[in-house]
């Protein structure tokens, strides 16, 4: 696709790094650089920073129970994490966008406590966990960043536990996605929803029909414009207002 004349890059894909440069979305680059390490020095420290993928849509990155060896930053695409509950139903735990880190919840377990699956074509940057943890003890900035990521990961799950309306949940979901994209330098008001409607419904604890009904109402009210999987936030203040009670800010 990249060699089609006149076609501009559209999907959120990080500028890939190389042996000497970090990827533009890298979750750790700032911490490392702040601590005075560049990428070549990290290599000298035998920290495994390994680019993996592409994982195809539907392909698993890790499965529940597998031994925990690495955390991974998403470089491109979207990853869904989920567990299968006692009744055999899938419970979606979260979606991970470029620049975000998967596998954090495994740190305290020694094995992965959930499944991670690619929702579209996914590229990862794998960090061997013992190595990065060891490095963190020598780099306060990196350790701080790891703690920050961990606390964000916990906060995300708590977001939707309350007793909120479908509109509030959806608004909070869209605003949260928007902020996360914005934080990585992507457009905050126009992005792709790579997850299926039933994944969204599952995550938001809503019926699948409710998700489409809320999307349609938001669209009819001029809050958003949905076209296939492309989403545009047209009236951000109104959506933020709806989301406020959920996001508590």
């Amino acid at each position, binding site marked *: *696709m990249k060699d089609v004349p006149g076609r501009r890059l559209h999907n959120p894909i990080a500028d890939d790094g190389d042996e000497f440069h970090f990827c533009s979305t890298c979750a750790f680059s700032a911490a490392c650089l702040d601590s005075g390490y560049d990428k070549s020095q990290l290599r000298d420290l035998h920290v495994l920073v390994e680019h993996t993928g592409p994982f195809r849509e539907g392909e698993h990155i890790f499965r529940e129970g597998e031994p925990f060896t690495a955390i991974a930053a998403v470089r491109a695409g979207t990853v869904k994490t989920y567990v299968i509950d006692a009744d055999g139903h899938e419970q979606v735990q979260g979606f991970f966008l470029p620049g975000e880190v998967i596998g954090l919840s495994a740190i305290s377990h020694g094995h992965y406590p959930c499944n991670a699956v690619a929702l579209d074509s996914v590229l990862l940057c794998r960090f061997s966990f013992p190595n990065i943890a060891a490095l963190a003890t020598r780099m306060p900035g990196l350790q701080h960043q790891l703690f920050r990521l961990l606390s964000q990961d916990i906060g995300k799950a708590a977001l939707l536990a309350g007793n909120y309306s479908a509109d509030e949940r959806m608004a909070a979901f869209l605003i949260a996605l928007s902020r996360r994209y914005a934080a990585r330098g992507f457009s905050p008001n126009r992005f792709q929803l790579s997850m299926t409607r039933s994944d969204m419904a599952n995550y938001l604890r809503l019926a699948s029909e409710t998700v489409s009904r809320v999307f349609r109402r938001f669209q009819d009210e001029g809050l958003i414009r949905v076209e296939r999987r492309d989403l545009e936030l047209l009236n951000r203040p109104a959506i933020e207002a709806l989301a406020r009670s959920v996001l508590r800010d």
Partner: protein
Amino acid sequence: MNSPLAFDADLLRRYDLPGPRYTSYPTAPHFGAGFDESRLRDHIRRSNSEPLPRRLSLYLHVPYCFSPCFYCGCNRIITRDPARGQRYVDSLVREIELAGRLFDRDRDVVQLHLGGGTPNFLRPAQLRELVESIGLHFHVSTSAQRDFSIELDPRCVREGDIAAYAQTGFNRASLGVQDFDPEVQQAVNRIQSVEETLKVIDECRASGFRSVNVDLIYGLPKQTLEGFARTLDIVMEARPHRLAVYGYAHLPDLFKPQRQIDATLLPSPQLKLALLQLAIEKLSAAGYRYIGMDHFALPEDDLAIAQAAGDLHRNFMGYTTLADCDLVGLGMSSISHIGDSFSQNPRDLASWEAALDQGRLPVWRGLELDEDDVLRAEVIQQLMCQGEIDIDAVETRHHIDFAEYFAESLGRLRSLCADGLASMDRRRIIATSRGRLLLRIIAMCFDRYLNQPAPQAERTRFSRVI
């Protein structure tokens, strides 16, 4: 697109080339056998999983006709045996059931179109059975805006039929007329009186149909300006909401029924153009708006309103006001358009029935659109519906530099501009009033497949532009 339609005989003659009608892009000859049932199921699943799944438009094909019209290029079966109709209905119901369960319940059916063949080969009770089956296996919209349309052969309409269709939910009808001239009717084997035709139009109105469309054809054997003028006068008098004036394409090698037509009786190219000019002048004088391709509508009709609002769309059923539907084609030879895919059912009855007997969706061939296909389809759609291409909008939506991406197309377009068919600047490409009868020619500039051989050597299926 409301400037007057200019008729330029010299231009039309020069550009009278074979070309697709762009009811789809890519066009059906480029569908391939690699697309099978599992691919279709996959595309349906994907379409269900979109945040706002698209509403549905259903097309049902009824292939049977009582008698052969010699001009016909449709996929149809001639029979007088009503038992075949019931057998077909039984199979269609199976297909409705198989397809219906694949679509999520929150996907409303907002459009239903019965085409043929002759849909009213089937009796009202059989049509009701089909519609009820759709109601059972799909979620049918209850909105007054829904479109339920049926193509009617007025010669097959019996007393009380129209009221029964209305009761079943049909609110639009399209009547085949072609020409009332008795000599022409004889030459094409379609004897149809003015009285029975007007009676059907009246009954549709009386039964509350939202619109009636009349199909006419120019270029038929033995057609004269005087005879066609009389036909137009009669039709104008009845004032249907919509009119289609198709050019007859004589392709006897492809369409067997056309071999019955004596080619020496066909009008000369000059006369054919004069017939078209006559139709355009009379329709314009009577207040009809040109919609595009072969279609005209009264200014108060939904199509004309939608076109004025930039809200017109085009699919296999022609022009429509309903945007962004996934199209589900049911019945032999029907075409579906789900998400970024096209797929077509077998064109022969036996294969279609055999698949259904085995509980399979009858997919014969199809195509997955790539990003380039989607982009070109949108450009061609804008052109066919609005008569212009909004370059800024295309660039924003598809993240391209239009001039760079379409450098080759624009090169081809330049000679059309020189001929006054189109004009372009940095923001817009517009079909001029001279070019609007030649929208296909302009659209062909953007068709990547035109210079590629079709998988099934179907190139010559394209009718001429005029």
